[in-house]
């Protein structure tokens, strides 16, 4: 349980900035669960970041029960390795554990996704990256409950917003950080979205990533934006241990490009306003963000 009563090194929330959030941070001491297709632990781009022995795989058997298998496993597709690689690139000393919820043939079901998420919550991971989801409304409550449990236990859950304008769970939950693409080429350049449920925008277009078979690939999609925020969250938590998820979100908000670069009234320092991410064309995103016009109106 966190004992943080005041944000360390700060006397006011307005003091939050990228320096406070990230400077000197490496991800050391932070555990990140990648709930996905598996992670290729021996990939040359991952170094020794992946604890293969701690991995776990979930699958739904023919009878409908979820089966769990502990220990090393491979990546059924490449997506999990890509997400792990992005986290590692940003937080090189964070420890990554693979939670595979897609079968050897790439198949997967909501029950397995949920089981993987719940396992990661029970295991007390600091950050949980879930670039997958389900459309099935029957599963929505179960995912909301799991994410709430993660939130109150102190696990920061990062999800990918759906790439199409359809409901997807748990990306709509308020207890997670839902992420869509911006058009940045810099992995450190991310934005806060003032219009939830998607709350952050990160690099997700033409991203060079680790892929299975020791290879690399160029990929596009919200599911690659989410691990950017996961990696940045790992940095925040490695520098400021014990922060609750809402505090991590606040730190990320304060470090977002459109918050840092927001116009400030003369004689007054404020971070309560944020300019829309239009300068980076970040309003051209997939997922649940649909700008009314190419340049969204400024909000103060």
């Amino acid at each position, binding site marked *: 349980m966190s004992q943080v009563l005041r944000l360390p090194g700060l006397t006011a929330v307005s003091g939050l900035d990228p320096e406070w959030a990230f400077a000197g941070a490496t991800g050391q001491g932070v555990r990140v669960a990648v709930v996905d297709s598996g992670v290729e632990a021996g990939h040359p781009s991952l170094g020794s970041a992946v604890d293969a022995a701690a991995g776990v795989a979930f699958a739904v058997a023919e009878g409908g029960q979820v089966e769990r298998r502990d220990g090393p496993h491979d990546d059924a597709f490449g997506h999990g390795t890509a997400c792990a690689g992005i986290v590692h690139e940003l937080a090189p000393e964070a420890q990554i554990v693979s939670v595979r919820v897609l079968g050897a043939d790439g*198949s997967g079901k909501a029950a397995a996704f949920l089981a993987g998420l719940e396992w990661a919550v029970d295991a007390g991971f600091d950050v949980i990256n879930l670039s997958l989801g389900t459309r099935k409304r*029957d599963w929505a409550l179960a995912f909301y409950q799991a994410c709430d449990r993660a939130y109150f236990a102190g696990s920061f859950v990062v999800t990918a917003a759906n790439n199409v304008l359809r409901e997807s769970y748990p990306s709509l939950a308020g207890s997670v950080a839902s992420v869509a693409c911006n058009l940045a080429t810099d992995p450190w350049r991310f934005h806060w979205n003032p219009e939830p449920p998607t709350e952050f925008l990160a690099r997700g277009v*033409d991203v060079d990533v680790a892929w299975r078979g020791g290879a690399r690939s160029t990929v596009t999609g919200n*599911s690659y934006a989410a691990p950017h925020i996961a990696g940045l969250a790992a940095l925040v938590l490695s520098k400021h241990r014990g922060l609750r998820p809402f505090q991590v979100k606040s730190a990320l908000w304060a470090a977002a490009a459109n918050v840092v670069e927001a116009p400030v009234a003369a004689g007054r320092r404020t971070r309560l306003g944020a300019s829309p991410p239009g300068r980076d064309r970040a309003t051209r995103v997939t997922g649940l963000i649909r700008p009314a016009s190419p340049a969204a109106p400024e909000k103060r």
Partner: protein
Amino acid sequence: MPSPTLQALVEAAVEVSGADRGWLVAGGRQGDLMALAVAGPGGPATLPGPIRGPAGAVPWVLASGQPAALRPAAGEAIGAGGLGDAGPSRLLCVPCPAGDDVVAALEVVDSRDGATAPFTIDDVEVVTLLGTVAGPAVLELGGTTPPARPAAELAADLAGLSAADPARYAVVAQALDALLG
């Protein structure tokens, strides 16, 4: 004989994305995959037909409901097996949802003009929209009435995309007009 509707959707996906070829693959009850339509060179002589061997991005798209847009490593046999050469230079595979389920995947690969740049975010949006239309069509083939998205909702999506790039989405609009009457 492939469904004319599905064939038109695959051809539209290939056309608007600048791909060399594409196909629509349905997920079966027991994890088997069935090719329902193919556009461009290659592919089985008879459709629909089962897919043997590795199916690349299709199973992941069916399971995750997320699109896969990637430029694979050289020689990686990631395209749906048996429907083209191994190792496409670029790949875009999108889900075809019907209600809460993803019933098929629409995949396009390579480039008809030899370009090697990855499929763009615009390509993802347009092909995803076609996949959204394909999902209920796949269900109808099976004789089940699909829970279709309201026409007004689809029209609003297309209107939004058209406002951003009218010329690009004109082909999509023509295809939908022809299909929906």
